[in-house]
């Protein structure tokens, strides 16, 4: 029966509801205490006291994407390792060898990305 799953979901739902509601309520509750003096200059973006020299909506260098890309692949691999990790103790040498082959594949992807220079910050 899925009793445990259901009560887990209910608990987490309640937990999340409380954690989301409290800051929102606080924000609203202190609204009347907060001063409001809107000014044109105050609403300018901060750039060390200068007028904004360039807008932050421009193509940006791709090094960030390289890392994100390698990240997501490794994340999936890590999660698969999490899936088998709890039973590895009773899986014997065979299980260890199977997981070892997988870890070798992970290492190979890391090696490839390294060789291709995807892990260099520029």
């Amino acid at each position, binding site marked *: 029966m899925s009793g445990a799953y259901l009560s887990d979901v209910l608990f987490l739902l309640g937990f999340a509801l409380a954690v989301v509601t409290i800051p929102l309520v606080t924000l609203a509750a202190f609204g009347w205490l907060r001063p409001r003096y809107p000014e044109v200059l105050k609403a300018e973006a901060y750039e060390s006291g200068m007028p904004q020299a360039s807008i932050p909506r421009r*193509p940006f260098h*791709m090094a960030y*994407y390289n890392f994100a*890309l390698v990240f*997501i*692949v490794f*994340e*999936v691999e890590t999660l*698969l390792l999490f*899936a088998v990790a709890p039973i590895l103790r009773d899986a014997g040498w065979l299980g260890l060898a199977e997981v070892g082959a997988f870890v070798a594949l992970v290492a190979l992807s890391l090696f490839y990305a390294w060789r291709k220079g995807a892990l260099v910050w520029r």
Partner: protein
Amino acid sequence: MTTAAVTLSSVLFAIGVFGVLTRRNAISLLVSVEIMMNAAIINLVAFSRLYEPEAMTGQVFALFGIGIAACEAAIGLALVLAVYRRFGSTDVDTIDLLKG
């Protein structure tokens, strides 16, 4: 529960199809494809509970599907960025090299 899951999955799949057919931005296309992918995964998980729950076939395939979705997003977005740098836009209709 199963009927509810199957219904939900069909609705989500249709929404994904709608997105793929109507959106023109490449990133939006990927968003729609992910919605369709998830619709399929919901079915896998729902049926995993019905047939041979101990064998976990459905959930293993769902895990597989999530892995594939990750690969797809990584490669898809790499393509989007490559197209963007070549054509200066992520709108799929601007990719018209063949028109010369």
